[in-house]
């Protein structure tokens, strides 16, 4: 459906080594605009390295990467105008309040009326009450919400989320998922890295598996499922998963903590 438009992210033959360790050995993939693309892989597969190259924090040894039509090596400034990075660890300023964190990013993005932008995002992410408290007092889920809210400032067309739900409790995780879905519905291109298979399954339009520095497969979930022999019918007792039990007990979507 988006075949006619240029990809939002293009990666070709990307290589990067750290000393003798070849982290990326020739990575290729495209991401269609407005879609959610999941880069799946175990720890050390090179996911973060790909994200860092795409967000101009790291240079590739070989190959090219373009974001929103701009080359990450030669047009880094334009790339930075087009993206937002939510790294593996919630990158919030612990000393500042939630609102001050948002105002800080809005000012650094040179936007008008940073205060109004901050208040709007606090409301959207259910942080209004916590807005005047130092971020160091936030729970893991709140901190991640603030982190993602900071990434949305300026409406960048492409967002990188590096393991956005690592370390979150199930409720916070589902909340982050909802946010990501809403982003893509609004036309933002999302590149997501994760080591949780169900996360990719839930969210992604396309899934690529990165293994030992190469993309093993890159397809839709439905197509990936066809890679294995067709399903056989088995009768099993339907047991609730622990996640279902947990969410039933604590009440999914209950008051934000």
């Amino acid at each position: 459906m988006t075949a006619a438009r240029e990809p939002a992210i293009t990666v070709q033959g990307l290589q990067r080594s750290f000393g003798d360790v070849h982290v990326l050995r020739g990575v290729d993939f495209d991401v269609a605009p407005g879609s959610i693309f999941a880069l799946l892989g175990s720890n050390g597969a090179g996911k973060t390295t790909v994200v860092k190259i795409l967000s101009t924090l790291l240079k590739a040894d070989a190959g090219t990467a373009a974001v929103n039509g701009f080359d990450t090596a030669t047009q880094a400034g334009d790339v930075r105008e087009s993206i937002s990075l939510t790294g593996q660890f919630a990158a919030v300023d612990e000393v500042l309040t939630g609102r001050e964190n948002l105002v800080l990013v809005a000012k650094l993005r040179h936007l008008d009326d940073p205060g109004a932008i901050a208040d709007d995002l606090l409301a959207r992410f259910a942080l209004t009450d916590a807005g005047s408290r130092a971020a160091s007092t936030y729970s893991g889920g709140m901190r991640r919400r603030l982190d993602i809210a900071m990434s949305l400032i300026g409406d960048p067309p492409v967002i990188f989320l590096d393991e956005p739900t690592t370390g979150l409790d199930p409720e916070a995780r589902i909340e982050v998922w909802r946010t990501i879905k809403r982003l893509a519905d609004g036309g933002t291109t999302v590149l997501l890295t994760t080591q949780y298979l169900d996360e990719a399954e839930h969210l992604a339009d396309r899934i690529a598996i990165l293994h030992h520095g190469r993309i093993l497969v890159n397809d839709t979930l439905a197509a990936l499922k066809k890679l294995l022999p067709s399903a056989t019918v088995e009768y099993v007792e339907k047991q609730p998963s622990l996640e279902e039990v947990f969410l039933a007990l604590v009440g999914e979507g209950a008051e934000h903590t």
Partner: protein
Amino acid sequence: MTSHFIGDTAVLTGRSLRHISRSPDTIITTAVMPIAFMLLFVYVFGGAIETGTDSYVNYLLPGILLITIASGIAYTAYRLFLDLQGGIFERFQSMPIARSSVLWGHVLTSLAANVISLVVVVLVALLMGFRSGAGVVAWLAIAGILMLFTLALTWIAVIAGLSAKTVDGASAFSYPLIFLPFISSAFVPTETMPGPVRWFAENQPVTAIVNTIRDLLAQQSIGSDIWVALAWCVAILVGAYVSAMVAYRRKIL
């Protein structure tokens, strides 16, 4: 991008100044050690030290001010290291800002924090009997030299903050800087020191800076010391700035 340098630097300086205003202990702890040294040397050792001046506080203060700066800049390395660890450094670097303003924000904050610490130390010295008849021009010259020295040492702190592996490592580099004034003319005249120590004391930057400030405070002619002092400050500043930029480039590639 460079067109945003001043605005971005102002925003990021405001951010780290807020850190200081929310943990004023960093200013107090910076001032405590130099004040302790001042009390110790004036009231314990001072009576036995022959400096050829009538007031030992007056003699001592310039060196104490340099110790204040040396202990104050360690916080710059500490804050920078925390930024790198917490990921907020990467967030800033991935944003469309003038990239070097991330460092300049910390450097200007160090300048502001050290000015406050220095004022606190001078006020305590006044209580202890420090007096100077120096005029406005002399005080401005002193302020200028101290700012230059702060700037030079802060860029050394930036190198430490960028390349440290642990929080302890990020602040440990300042210990030698704090003790440098002891092997100089800051506490005792260099004439009493044995040969090699005296040679080191007379040819290291602290002695020239201390002598210059001391002469300015005592309203004496300052001679060539001020040029030696300025040359040292500028040389350290340029050397540290260039090394910090190399460490910084290595960090973002």
